[in-house]
């Protein structure tokens, strides 16, 4: 007998083993994105332009320098990190849930050689790709506005991908648990927005009280900002290994749990 009791319980906790099919899932999403590329890019370029011109110049007049950088550069380099976070988080929660539940896109995929692991891996890569697109757009805007002028900033591109993966994992995890869209409002309000405000995008985390700093220090966006800001501003880097390790840990743990829970959800 193959189906001993509990045998498949073990199966569902096994490590994910995605295959080449993940690329097909990623390409499916790229194809959808390309159909609405105009609107997406307008948003990707328009929003940072407003932030950088409005806040960067407006606040910059009063603030002058922050953390040794002109304020608009400080802000631009912070937004580079937070934009990958926001974009990957939205795609990994709202959009993935939409494909999983109302659209049943994954049920269709699961009637092909694709497995849940392929879907989760492909979605994760896609979330990171969208994060990369949005942050790269900001980079371009910041360069055109003269807020960033170092060639070192090109190293940001792989960093954006890593930041995207870091936030895609937890977002997919939330989506795999969601029973409706409501939970994503909690996720944004309780996790994403606080990070956006506290993790060093608008001011250095060193200006926060000690206890708060300790908490903020374990949040992924803090490490994303700490990695990307010096890269983009052409400053010397420090603790690169630590930041990469923390971001990777969130990505991998998120991926693992999302794969396990999505398997349970899609395979009865």
């Amino acid at each position, binding site marked *: *007998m*193959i*189906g001993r*009791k509990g045998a*498949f319980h073990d*199966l569902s906790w096994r490590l994910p083993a995605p*295959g*080449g*099919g993940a690329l*097909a899932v990623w*390409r*499916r999403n790229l*194809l*959808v994105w390309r*159909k609405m590329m105009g609107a997406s890019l307008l948003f990707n370029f328009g929003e940072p332009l407003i932030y950088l011109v409005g806040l960067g110049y407006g606040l910059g007049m009063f603030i002058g320098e922050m953390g040794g950088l002109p304020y608009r550069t400080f802000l631009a380099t912070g937004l580079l990190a937070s934009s990958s976070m926001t974009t990957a988080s939205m795609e990994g929660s709202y959009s993935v849930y939409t494909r999983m539940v109302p*659209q*049943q*896109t994954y*049920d*269709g*995929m*699961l*009637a*092909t*050689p*694709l*497995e849940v692991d392929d879907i989760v891996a492909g979605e994760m890569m896609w979330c990171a790709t969208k994060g990369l697109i949005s942050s790269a757009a900001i980079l371009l805007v910041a360069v055109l506005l003269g807020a960033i002028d170092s060639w070192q900033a090109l190293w940001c591109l792989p960093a954006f991908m890593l930041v995207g993966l870091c936030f895609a994992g937890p977002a997919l995890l939330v989506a795999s648990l969601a029973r409706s869209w409501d939970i994503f409002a909690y996720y944004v309000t309780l996790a994403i927005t606080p990070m956006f405000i506290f993790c060093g995008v608008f001011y250095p985390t060193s200006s926060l009280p000690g206890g708060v700093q300790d908490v903020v220090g374990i949040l992924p966006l803090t490490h994303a900002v700490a990695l990307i800001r010096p890269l983009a501003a052409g400053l010397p880097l420090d603790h690169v290994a630590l930041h990469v390790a923390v971001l990777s840990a969130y990505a991998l743990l998120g991926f693992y749990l999302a794969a396990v829970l999505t398997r349970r959800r*899609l*395979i*009865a």
Partner: protein
Amino acid sequence: MHSPDPVILARGLCKNFNGLAAVRGIDLDVRRGVCFGLLGPNGAGKTTTLKMFLGQCHKSGGELRVLGMAMPQQGRKIRRRMGVVPQADNLDPDFTVYENLLVYASYFGIARPLARERIDELLDFVGLSDRAATHIGELSGGMKRRLSVARALINDPELLILDEPTTGLDPQVRHLLWTRLRELKRSGKTLLLTTHYMEEAERLCDELAIMDHGRIIAQGSPRAVIRQFVEPDVIEIQGCPPPLHAGLTAANAGRLEIFGETTYVYTADAQALALCLKQSPEISYLHRPANLEDVFLKLTGRDLRE
């Protein structure tokens, strides 16, 4: 190289959903090249059974081999050679008809040029060639169903699984699908379908199994199943008056079943009874050969499900 195994072999297959036994130990052999029908009232466990065959639902017990390979261990390989039309269409609403097929082909790793060739053939096969650029949201129910069938054929599968392919369709679309399914069978594919329509099963299926409450309660060719479970003829009498009913019972005319206004007489000797009924012109009756629906109702009862 084809294995001599049946395309589907299930032994003692079970599925429990947190204590609810949806499938309770079924044995099934689907031979290569046949059209096999799985019949049963709502909630009988048909969809659950099909989902185990394609790996979207893990069995709780028993043995299952599909295309000669163990399910779910070899799921990827099995699904490469299988096509599925799900009970509820799950076409990709972000794409047009053509893109749906192109993207689905990519899940099988089919190269673009081959995919495009197949898509043209398949759209023609299901009569959607002029709809290639239409968005899914603008298709009628029948068109979606036909597109689902085309999508299930994109990998030229050996085994095609269809869960209620014709439910809710108008007669034109049903007949088109029947024609297409027969063509597929003639081309050597194995078909496994579920349906509520007994006349559909009688027309299409070489073999069938009737399921109820998670068990298979009858199995065989439609003819054989009818022969095994019901008398060859049925006489339906509308508003059978009590004296006639008493007479039928006394004369041992056949097995009587009353449902609403209608009395069904299942009998091996319909000739004599019909002759007798003809003498009372005020009684309206219908004489017909027994069919699969009679078997189905006898085995699963006339009570409403759900």
